C-alpha cells in the first residue's frame, strides 16, 4: 500500500538506513551510509554531491540494480530486496524508468522501436504501443525522427528518446543517472525542459543524480550526499 503524506501526494520510494559497502583491498568503503529518505509522487529531485559521494550507488539501490549491505528500500510500500531476481526484473519493468549516461538505446532499433520495446516486454498490444509511442514522440518533440536509428541522433536527442522510453511503461518514477553529463549546454537545456514539462504536465516523478549546476538550479528538491551520507535535503519553490 502507498504511504500517503497528504491528499494529493504519496510516498513512492522510502529508504531505511540504507548502507552499501565496497571492499577495497582490506579496507571497506561506505558508498552509502545509513541513508534515510522518502520520495513522493510528482517530485523533481536531484541527488548532488562530488564524484564518489555515492550518488550512482544510491540510485542503483533504489532501482534494485544493486543489493544493499544493510537497510531496506521500499517502492510503493514493497521491500524490493525481498523480491526474487525474476520478480525484481518484472517489478522494474512496470514501476521504474531508467535513463543512463550513455548507451541508453538499443542501437539496432529505430527511435519508435526503442520506445515501443519496453511496452513489448510488458506485453502491451500493438495498437496501444503505437498510440503511446506517438504520444511520447509528440511530448519530446521528436515525431519527425521516429524512424531514425540512434546513430543518426545527437547526444541530446538520444537522451530525450531515453526519457520517452523510460516513460513508455508508465512507471511510478524515473531514475536518471547524470542524464546531462555528456551534453552541451543547449542539449542539456532542452533535455531538462522536456523533463520539467513531463513532470508538470504528466506528473512524472524524477529522481536524478547530477553535479551540473544548470540541472541543480531547475530541481525542486536537492539531496546532497557526501561520503555516502545525506548532508543536506532542501526543497525549493521554482
Amino acid at each position: 500500500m502507498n504511504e500517503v503524506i497528504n491528499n494529493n501526494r504519496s510516498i513512492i520510494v522510502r529508504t531505511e538506513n540504507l548502507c552499501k559497502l565496497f571492499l577495497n583491498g582490506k579496507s571497506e568503503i561506505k558508498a552509502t551510509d545509513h541513508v534515510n529518505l522518502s520520495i513522493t509522487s510528482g517530485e523533481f529531485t536531484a541527488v548532488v554531491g562530488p564524484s564518489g559521494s555515492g550518488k550512482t550507488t544510491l540510485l542503483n539501490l533504489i532501482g534494485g540494480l544493486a543489493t544493499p549491505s544493510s537497510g531496506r528500500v521500499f517502492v510503493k510500500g514493497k521491500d524490493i530486496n525481498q523480491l526474487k531476481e525474476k520478480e525484481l526484473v518484472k517489478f522494474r519493468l512496470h514501476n521504474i524508468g531508467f535513463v543512463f549516461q550513455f548507451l541508453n538505446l538499443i542501437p539496432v532499433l529505430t527511435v519508435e522501436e526503442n520506445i515501443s520495446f519496453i511496452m513489448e516486454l510488458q506485453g502491451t498490444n500493438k495498437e496501444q504501443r503505437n498510440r503511446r509511442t506517438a504520444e511520447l514522440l509528440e511530448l519530446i518533440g521528436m515525431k519527425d525522427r521516429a524512424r531514425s536509428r540512434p546513430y543518426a541522433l545527437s547526444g541530446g536527442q538520444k537522451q530525450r528518446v531515453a526519457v520517452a522510453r523510460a516513460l513508455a511503461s508508465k512507471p511510478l518514477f524515473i531514475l536518471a543517472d547524470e542524464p546531462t553529463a555528456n551534453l552541451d549546454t543547449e542539449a542539456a537545456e532542452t533535455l531538462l525542459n522536456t523533463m520539467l514539462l513531463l513532470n508538470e504536465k504528466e506528473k512524472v516523478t524524477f529522481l536524478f543524480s547530477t553535479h551540473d549546476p544548470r540541472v541543480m538550479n531547475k530541481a525542486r528538491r536537492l539531496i546532497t550526499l557526501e561520503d555516502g551520507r545525506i548532508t543536506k535535503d532542501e526543497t525549493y519553490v521554482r
Partner: protein
Amino acid sequence: MIKLAWLNLQRNPYRAMSIVSSVFIAAFFCILFGSFKKGVLNSSADSILKISGGHIEIRSKSYSQTRSIDDIMCIDSAILDSISILPHVKRVLPTLRAYALISHSSSSSSRAVVLVGIDPESEKDRIRMVSEMVEGEWFSEFDRGVIIGENMRNLLNIGIGDTIAVMGVGYHGVSAVGLFPVQGVIGLPVATVDINSMFMTLSAAQELFQADDCYSEIYIMSDKLDKVEVIESFIQSDFSSDEYEIRDWKLLIDEHLVYFRITDAIGFIVMFFLYLLVGSNILGAVILMTKERKLEFSVLVSIGMPRDKLSRTMFYELIMVAFVGLILAVIVSLPIVYYFSNNPIPLYGEAAETLKKFFIYAEIYLSFDLSLFIEQFLIVFCICLAVIAYPVIIIQRLKVDEGLSKRES
C-alpha cells in the same frame, strides 16, 4: 527476439564475421581432416583387401577347416556371371589354391609351394599394384606357364624359359602332374610369400588338378566399401550358410586390425586436439563479443528485459552465425573433398616405399562421404552450442550495477 538477434548481427558485421570465420575455419578443417582420416583408413583397407583378395570371400565351410583340395567348391559359372552384374560389384575373382611339390633339374631336392590359379586379366591390377615384374611377362588368358617369386627364382637358380616339374594330388585323389615353363618372375613385397608361391592361370590350375569349375575361394571386389553389406545380402541366396562361409572385409582384415586401430587412435587424438583448438578459437571470439557487450546487457536487464529473454536473443544470434559458418564450410569443402577423393595426392620417396611394403597405396585419398559432412557439421554445431553456454551463463550471473559501471572505464 529473433528479429532483434538478426538486427544485432547486422549492427556489427565485423564482429559477426569474426565469429562466422571462426566457425567456418573450425568446420572446414574438421571436415577436411575427418575426410582425410576416413580416406586413409578406407584406402588402406582397400589396398590390403586387394592384396588379400577382395571385400568378400566365399569358400566352402569344409575347405576352411581342412584346406584340402577335396573340399573346394564347384560352382556353375553362370552363378559367377550373375554375381559380376550385381550393383556395386567391381570384379569377381575366382581362385584355385592348392599345395604341390616342385622340382627343377638344377636342384636335387623338391620343394612344397602354394600353387595359385588366378584369372590373369582380373588379377593383373591387383597383384601388380604391389609387385613388379622382374623378368618375363604377365599372363595372357591361355598361357600355360608359371610366374614365380624373385626369391624362389634365386633359390632354385632358374630363369625364364626353364621348366618346372609339378607334382601333387588333384581333385578327388587324381594325380596332378605337369611340366610348366617359367614365363615370368615377380617381386612380391613379402619374402615368405615370394619364396613359397607360384602363380598360373586359373584354367591351367583347374586342368592340372582336374577341377573344372572348382575354386578354393571366390573373392568379390566392390566399388564402394559401404556397399559390401548390400552385395553380401544379394549373394546369400546362392551360397547357403550350411555349406559356405561368406566373410566380409571386416573379418578379412582382422589380422591388420592393429594397424587400423593405431591409425584410428592417432586420427582420434588428432581430431580431439583439432576440436579443442577450434572450440577454443570459437570460444575466444564469443568471449570477446560478450565482454564488449556487457554494458549493453546490463542496460537491457536494468530497463526490464528478463535475463531469459536476453539469453534467448543471444542464443539465436550465435546460432545464426554458427549456421552461416557451418554451411559456408560445407559449401567450400564439398568440391575440395570431391576433387581429392577422385584425384589422390601421390606420395614420393621413403614414405611411398614404406607404405608399399605394407601393401598400402602410396597416395592420400580424401573420403567423399556425405555422412562425414553431416557428422562433422553436427560435432562443430555441438561445440558451438557448448560455447554459446558462455554468454548465457554470463547474462544469468551478470551483476547489473557492475556492468553499468563499466561505462565509467
